[in-house]
């Protein structure tokens, strides 16, 4: 993927919202629910703001304590997944016009960014957000084992 490629969020049908250090994304055509946290949250925040891929990789490399190649591979894989899921589409213009926030002083440990996906709308709606969930809350069910 070229470092100058930028993306936009097709709204509708995609809607997204941030809750602290997590973003949730929904495809309103079929109700599929997605969640991104940690490095995935940071990647989503930047890519959905129209920042070019190269700038996103630079930003995460400045934030996380991991080899640049590992971060580049992981971020590129996540962005490709976001594109495959239809959550982002390529913007017509390349470049990096969106501002990027300052990097933190101390680097954080890096974990492979993950796009969590919940496809069963009925199950999502049936899951009681108070009683049936783990400590991180809906939509992650309580371990019944």
């Amino acid at each position, binding site marked *: 993927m070229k470092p100058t490629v930028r993306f936009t969020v097709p709204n*509708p049908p995609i809607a997204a919202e941030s*809750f602290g250090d997590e973003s*949730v994304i929904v495809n*309103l055509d079929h109700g599929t629910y997605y969640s991104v946290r940690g490095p995935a949250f940071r990647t989503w925040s930047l890519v959905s703001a129209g920042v070019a891929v190269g700038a996103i990789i630079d930003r995460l490399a400045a934030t996380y304590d991991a080899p640049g190649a590992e971060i580049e591979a992981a971020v590129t894989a996540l962005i490709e997944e976001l594109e495959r899921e239809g959550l982002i589409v390529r913007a017509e213009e390349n470049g990096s016009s969106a501002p990027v926030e300052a990097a933190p002083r101390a680097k954080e440990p890096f974990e492979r960014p993950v796009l969590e996906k919940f496809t069963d709308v*009925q199950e999502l709606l049936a899951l009681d*957000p*108070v009683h049936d969930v783990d400590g991180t*809350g809906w939509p992650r069910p309580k371990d019944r084992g």
Partner: protein
Amino acid sequence: MEIFPQVPRDPAWRPDALQELLLKAALLAGPPAVSAWRAWSTRVDLDRLDEGSNRLLALVSANLDRLGVHDDAAGRLRGYRRRTWYVNQVKMKQLEVVLDAFAHAGIATLILKGAALARAFYPDPSLRPMSDLDILVRRRDALRAIAWLLDQGWTAAERRVARRLEVFFGTDGDTEGRILQREGIGFSRGTIDLDLHWRVLHHRGWPGADDPFWDASVETTVGAASTRMLNPTDSLLHVCEHGSRWNKVPPIRWIADALMILRAGGTAIDWDRLVRRARDLQVTSALAAMLAYLREELDAPVPASCLAELRAVRATWIERAERRTTHRRPGELPFVLRLWFEHVHASRDVGWPSTLASLPRHLVYAFDLRGTSELPSFVVTRTATRVVHGLRG
């Protein structure tokens, strides 16, 4: 001598002590909110929460995040907020489809309750859970709106209404008359519930009762669909009137809704209009008590002059009687008495002879009987059932 029971000391709209703590944790700023949360969370098990309190959790979550309070419940509270956002998104998409179809059919719509309040008055739509989609149409358009919903696979949530619509809708005038006697019909399709209304307030069914609401409503959009909603003043009136009635889910959410309208609506509230409309719709006494509660307990910006004007209105006997009944759970009053109030209120301006003459038909429709000949045996059976239930405790 008063022949009706007194207004309950704790009417349905008033939260209990624990609910009040949760409301303060959700709605106040700074230390009062934090101390309310601490007091509430040490006394309440989140797993055993009443549904009315449940509906406040998204607001609580956002307020605690804002105040920097992070405890064991934070994850679940934030999850509740995520779910609220998600469900609202899914429901608003459905609402957009229905509103768009109605617009293309020339049916004017006005959105009520959650769909309107969450977007217009809450700082973030994820803070206000939506249960049903509430759409108001004019009474003259109601049958066309119902026909479209049925055609699209929506079914009436109430079984006897669903049966009647399935068998008779569009085939006989009697069914249409029975339907229009109602204030609306609840529909469902899949996991989505939709309430189609053709009256804004309960029992205010006299000709032209809703015209001022429509005339002063404001344009809004849901996705790409154009619709209307009540202006801030009428929204406040509607939220309070709706919240004043007994509901199996404690209706305490009216407090959050009203406060959000007051905060966001600010100077847009026309207090003179509020008093005028409350007087016309005969809801002054309950409104005065509820607004006074907001002002005293939550420091809401309700002018003292408005309260004084509302309190100065001498409530009509039917308003007083209604206030004594609608705050109570069904069954606490004889059902015929309740229906009588409803009927008299809805028959305003037609005169007593017409009111009395149309009562049998009102009862036949209310109980879904075939005709007036069934009324005596129905009333005797129903009363006997109530008496037996009462004796059994």
